[in-house]
């Protein structure tokens, strides 16, 4: 009998997981949220379970108990959590385990340990990973924080132990502002995570964000699949990624990769995971954290290594041994991922909701599209703004940049504004082209004017004029003395043809 895999997620990642499930001969079961009952991913599934979450504030994907209940009712063998939602919730993984459902991911204990930053850091130190100088655990109060900050030097970063996504995080530039910022970070951490523990570390002013993809099995084998550079961020949200990173020499890549593998082995890690590093301007790297799930940007790694990470997540969960060794992993070319978010980069990235009237993706053998939407899809305020990913492969970095720009020119979406023009501007920016960009790029360089281009402005002027002229000439033609005999403008002629 075919194994039944429940995907506790939605949108593009659900479709991505369904593909792997089918390839491995499994039946893909998905949850239908009342908040998007016509979502695209439902079409790809073998079975749809209506979740009836309309009355709840939370969508079904955040309701651990209900998901497990549904899984039991529907004879589910395995659950894939995707990313976000329940993917890094140790209680959910434990609940699956207790109910005899195979959770696709590492153990609840690993998820829990890596989720608590102070524990993760302690384990990293034990494995010999370099850490950004910082407090050994949570600091008691603002006074202790100021004392510690003085010892490592300002600026420093206050971070919630239970945090993520930039919440409960403050940069403190000088001692005088410590008390105020400590309090606001604490309050934010309490309200966001129910835990006000803050730790403190040295703040790197111009860092790059690099991460190594790890893959391990339940038999103690771990390999890495190289790095991704995710420095292009806005408010700690990644906007586009590339693999490999132009900032690493082969020696650094080996050193950082080996360390990541060593760490993963030491903690007994299995499934796909990511070791995040930051790299300062001098080329010194530090361990940041480990993500115990599949990442949004995993396709760039797949593009250059040819390894299917989601396939392996499922196989590892079933106890299969990793057939790949570190020597099997070869990097081929370069890949870039564009995140298409329905956010308006001309207006401080404000979220856009509504209808996607038309969407057109570029097609080529070098382009992979992961989309959760199609013509007529509705973007609701209930979920993430990321609707699609455009992943492009090239033979080297200049080649992939050129191909990605071309792909973006072919991409179109009518109805909502997206971050695609933003990515286009980034790809053309000197700091990106020379690979010098850091996580401060948006704050330092981005202006909405960068989104514009002269040719598009000119065509825009033409379109605006045609719209205006159509009315203008219509009015003119209604006046009997007018010399306008007709409306057959160039544009109207073409319209009939």
């Amino acid at each position, binding site marked *: 009998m075919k194994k039944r895999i429940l995907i506790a997620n939605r949108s593009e990642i659900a479709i991505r997981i369904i593909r792997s499930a089918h390839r491995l001969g499994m039946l893909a079961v998905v949850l239908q949220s009342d908040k998007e009952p016509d979502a695209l991913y439902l079409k790809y599934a073998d079975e749809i379970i209506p979740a009836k979450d309309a009355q709840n504030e939370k969508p079904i994907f955040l309701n651990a108990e209900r998901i497990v209940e549904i899984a039991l009712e529907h004879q589910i063998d395995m659950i894939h959590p995707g990313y976000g939602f329940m993917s890094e919730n140790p209680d959910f993984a434990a609940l699956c385990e207790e109910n005899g459902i195979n959770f696709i991911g590492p153990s609840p204990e690993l998820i829990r340990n890596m989720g608590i930053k102070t524990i993760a850091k302690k384990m990293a130190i034990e494995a010999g990973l370099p850490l950004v100088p910082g407090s050994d655990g949570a600091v008691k109060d603002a006074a202790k924080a100021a004392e510690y900050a003085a010892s490592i030097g300002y600026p420093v970063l206050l971070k919630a132990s239970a945090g993520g996504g930039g919440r409960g995080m403050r940069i403190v530039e000088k001692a005088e502002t410590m008390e105020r910022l400590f309090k606001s970070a604490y309050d934010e951490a309490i309200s966001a995570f129910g835990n006000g523990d803050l730790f403190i570390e040295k703040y790197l002013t111009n860092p790059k964000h690099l991460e190594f993809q790890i893959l391990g099995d339940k038999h103690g084998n771990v390999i890495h699949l190289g790095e991704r550079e995710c420095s292009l961020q806005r408010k700690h949200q990644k906007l586009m990624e590339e693999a490999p990173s132009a900032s690493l020499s082969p020696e650094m890549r080996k050193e950082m990769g080996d360390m990541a593998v060593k760490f993963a082995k030491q903690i007994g890690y299995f499934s796909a995971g990511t070791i995040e590093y930051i790299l300062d301007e001098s080329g010194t790297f530090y361990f940041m954290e480990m993500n115990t799930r599949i990442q949004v940007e995993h396709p760039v790694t797949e593009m250059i290594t040819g390894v299917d990470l989601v396939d392996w997540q499922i196989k590892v969960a079933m106890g299969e041994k990793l057939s790949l060794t570190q020597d099997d992993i070869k990097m081929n070319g370069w890949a870039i991922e564009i995140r298409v978010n329905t956010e308006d980069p*001309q207006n401080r990235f404000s979220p856009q909701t509504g209808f996607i*009237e*038309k969407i057109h993706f570029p097609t080529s053998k070098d382009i992979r599209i992961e989309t959760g939407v199609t013509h007529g899809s509705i973007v609701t305020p209930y979920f993430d703004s990321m609707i699609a990913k455009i992943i492009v492969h090239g033979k080297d970095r200049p080649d992939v940049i050129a191909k990605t720009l071309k792909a973006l*020119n*072919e991409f*179109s*979406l*009518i*109805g909502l*504004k*997206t971050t*695609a*023009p933003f990515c286009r501007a980034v790809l053309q920016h000197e700091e990106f082209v020379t690979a010098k960009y850091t996580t401060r790029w948006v704050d330092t360089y981005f202006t909405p004017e960068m*989104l*514009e*281009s002269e*040719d*598009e*402005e*000119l*065509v*825009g*002027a*033409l*379109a*605006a*004029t*045609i*719209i*205006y*002229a159509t009315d*203008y*000439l219509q009015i*003119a033609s209604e006046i009997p003395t007018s*010399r*306008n005999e007709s409306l*057959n*403008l*160039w*544009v109207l*002629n*073409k*319209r009939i043809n």
Partner: protein
Amino acid sequence: MGTSYIYKRDATRLFIALRENGKRFKIYLPKESKPVIDGEEQDINFIEQTDSQYCFDWNDKRYNCELVSRDQNKTIIKVNGVEYKFSLESIFSYIRHGMINKDGKQLNENDILSPMPGKIVDIFLSEGDLVNVGEPILSLEAMKMQNEITATCNGVIQKIHIVQGQTVMKDDLLVEITSIDV
């Protein structure tokens, strides 16, 4: 005559699109040919239009335009996902607002005076017509020779002061033209 000129008489097809940042486009929509933008015919192809969406092709690039909003002559148009705001004017209202030639003196520089005494044989254009620089406006016969008097700028014929068959003296004002050249 005429076909080699960009502007084809009908000034009602000439518009000005002004961006908030001050950038200005002079857009002429001829009846039978490609649009003329800032005096140059552009090989922009019109692909399709549905409701408020217009799709163009230019130099192998696709341009998807959507009308975002319209308030009188203020228009916001989204091109390939990026918004641009324009205010639109017909050339007549543009001239009326005195936006092309702010000082009156400059206006007169484009007036056509008779270069010599003679007789108006023919007038090729009418008031309100668009005229191209170098385009003959009228024919003046003097010393048994017919001389074509041409426009000194691209512009709109504001007023014609003479009629066919009229005799004129040197420096008589023949035609007033408002330049559309920036």
